[in-house]
């Protein structure tokens, strides 16, 4: 940044970016019934993100372009879209990643389109309701140690951008919404299941309506997560192991019966 001593002047082609250059943004315009991409020229300044470009269009070219956003700081998870075929947050995707290319901005593919870049993500909120909430063993304040909350804290970083739900091929390509809760809710369940104070049991839900078996651990959710949550490695696979304990491991079952019986 503005630290001349660390900057290699010669290697700073971006210095010229002080003056705006133009880029082409191709934005999906349309609604549930029909639509197509439309091209716009946008002046690009240093550090601009895709969301800035959409805002510029709204203010200067067409105030009816619909897009969802709140924080413009990658905190709220509202501005998810498919950008050049890759699911990402518009407020975190820099335009200078695409210099010399047309930037295609489309709504998330997995969810029904409402208008332009806005999709109907209400399904996610319905799924959330089906998960039994945190059920503590005793009243707070709890004595809990950092090592015991570490795992849960990783999952609670989730900003509910639903990019993982968008990219998960079970939902995206196989319309698995009636069978699988999707990665976002696998980490939700993992967080609750690994909570040291929780007494509820969601393993049967996982094996049944939650549809954990439909995930084939191909890790795309983990690849797109803007919060860098290890969705597959730290949540889904451990949950698969927990269901295997109950449904696929006769030896463990025997052990458990002996211990409880």
């Amino acid at each position, binding site marked *: *940044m*503005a*630290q001349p001593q*660390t900057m290699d002047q010669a290697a700073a082609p971006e210095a010229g970016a002080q003056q705006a250059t133009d880029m082409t943004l191709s934005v999906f315009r349309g*609604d549930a019934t029909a639509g197509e991409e439309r091209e716009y020229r946008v002046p690009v*300044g*240093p*550090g*601009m*993100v895709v969301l*800035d470009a959409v805002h510029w269009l*709204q*203010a*200067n070219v067409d*105030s*009816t372009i*619909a*897009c*969802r956003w*709140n*924080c*413009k*700081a*990658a*905190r*709220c*998870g*509202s501005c998810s879209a498919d950008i050049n075929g890759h699911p990402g947050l518009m407020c*975190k995707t*820099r335009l200078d990643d695409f210099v010399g290319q047309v930037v295609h901005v489309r709504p998330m593919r997995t969810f029904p389109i*409402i*208008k*332009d870049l*806005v999709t109907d*993500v*209400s399904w996610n*909120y319905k799924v*959330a*309701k089906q998960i039994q*909430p*945190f059920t*503590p063993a005793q*009243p*707070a*304040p*709890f*004595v*809990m*140690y*950092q090592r015991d*909350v570490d795992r*849960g*804290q990783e999952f*609670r*970083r*989730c*900003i*509910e951008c639903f990019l993982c739900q968008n990219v998960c091929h079970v939902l995206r390509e196989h319309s698995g919404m009636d069978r699988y809760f999707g990665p976002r809710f696998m980490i939700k369940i993992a967080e*609750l299941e690994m*909570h040291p104070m929780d007494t509820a049991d969601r393993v049967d839900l996982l094996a049944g309506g939650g549809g954990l078996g439909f995930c084939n651990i191909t890790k795309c959710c983990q690849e797109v997560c803007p919060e860098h949550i290890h969705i597959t490695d730290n949540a889904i696979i451990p949950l698969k192991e927990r269901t295997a304990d109950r449904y696929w491991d006769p030896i463990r079952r025997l052990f458990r019966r002996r211990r409880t019986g």
Partner: protein
Amino acid sequence: METGMDSIERFEYDVLVLGAGGAGLRAAIGAAQDGVRVAVICKSLLGKAHTVMAEGGVAAAMGNVDPADGWQTHFYDTMRSGHFINNYRTAEIFAKEAPDRVFELESWGALFDRTPEGKIMQRPFGAHTFRRLCHVGDRTGLELIRTLQYKGIHCGIDIFQEVTTTRLLKDGERVAGAIGYERESGRFLLWRAKAVVLATGGWGKVYKVTSNSWESTGDGAAIAYRADAELQDMEMVQFHPTGMVWPPGVRGILVTEGVRGEGGILVNAEGRRFMQDYDPKRMELSSRDVVARSIHKEVQAGRGTPHGGAWLDITHRGAEFIRRKLPNMYDQFLHLADIDITKTKFEVAPTIHYTMGGVRADPETCATNVPGLFAAGEVACGLHGANRLGGNSLSDLLVFGRRAGEAAREYAMGLTVLPGVDDGEVRLEQERVLRPFAVEAGENPYQLHAELQQVMGEHAGIARDGASLQAGLDKIMALQERAGRIGVSGSRMYNPGWHTALDVGNMLLLCEAIFRGALAREESRGAQWRTDHPDELEDFGRINFVEYRDGDTMRLKTYPVSPMPPELAALFASDVAPGLATAPAVGPAAGGRE
């Protein structure tokens, strides 16, 4: 009732909560008991409210790391940094109840950072005597809202997402419900309700350089004002000392106070740690008004950084520590500004952060002067006075969200019938909301928004003076004229131009209130710095300015600040915070203080 104009879908509830930030959700949870029917209405999706952006922590005097801390000290800090125009009773209730509200979050599944003894960890923050902010890295607001959200969806509350309320309906003096439209379709909705809780947050979007999300357009305060509620302390607008500066697209995005709480230091262009010239005792962790002003003065004196700010440096804490304690900051700078904060210092400058003013609310019940209307959270006024302490907002949401929700429930249970709704009023409101579509070649709403932000930045910034404020007020009045001619195109389906048109109307109203308050308060106090009246004057310390509606004009009046009872006043007898004399040596030194 369906008189041609436009169809409207109707609902009936006991308690209607406007807003799904921390305050709104906590209120809804508090209201949804004993079979009381509750609805929450929010402009964006559930869990996306502005609260999600809060970073540093939630202040509650649990004394987990500094056992000498207690409600008295928290009360003391809050009153002092509010420069004593806060409502003492509000602050007292707040300081006493905050710890329980945080524990409650834990019992609903929140996972705060822990101390080695397994308790909730607390970090130091500006102008807090002790380490007091319960936190989760630098994403405390997210933790708070997610916890309340998942608690809320299992409490039988109906949630209307992406619905904007535009007006409160009244039956005589009392509140009768609200009207709004679905952003997705533009369809009108009407809720009849016995009680309404206002929790719509602040209006930081009236400034250009702001840390606030788009929702902070002050709809709630404007709606309440139009329904005859009183707005108080509107001149008090908090500048957070550290916002991002460069590149232009990120200007204003918050750099959490946690950076300074964890040991970050501020230096000017000459490399001097300038806070020693302004507040040698508390240094970087002085109160926000002081730090923001200091940076402003450095820049004015020509000692600013290349883009007009100060350097903030945390590199001495080591990469590993920074990445663990401030992961979002690290990521934010790396991604948006190409800066690795573990390796270099970075530029910061003041940014609009919080609006202390708002709807005047009762300390015990959060009731406003309009029967049936309650207010909590950033939209309410009373707790923070002339300057909010960092971390006090999140606990404010919890403490008074709950109180507002429960009071609204009790109020609603005391009413046997739903107040009536006047269809003529509904029709007028629909007309008002749809007017921009009828204007041909009207004003561009985005243009007006940009201009009003320009005016606020120029005339109602950190440093204010009478002449400039008056000029600003005149400009705002002119913009209000033009706002009547805003025109938009397209359909009512998810139309951002139209949404902005309505927001601009609300914002202009609040801008006017800010100017009127700032003009009337001819002194410097907390966030209000009048260069033509640089001193804090005792007389002004005894009053709050209140704006209220009189037909179509805004009027100003004053209320006396209620004096503290002797036992609370006694806390301020000496210059030492309660508990500090007895505090062990490990005290707040961790933050590089005292």
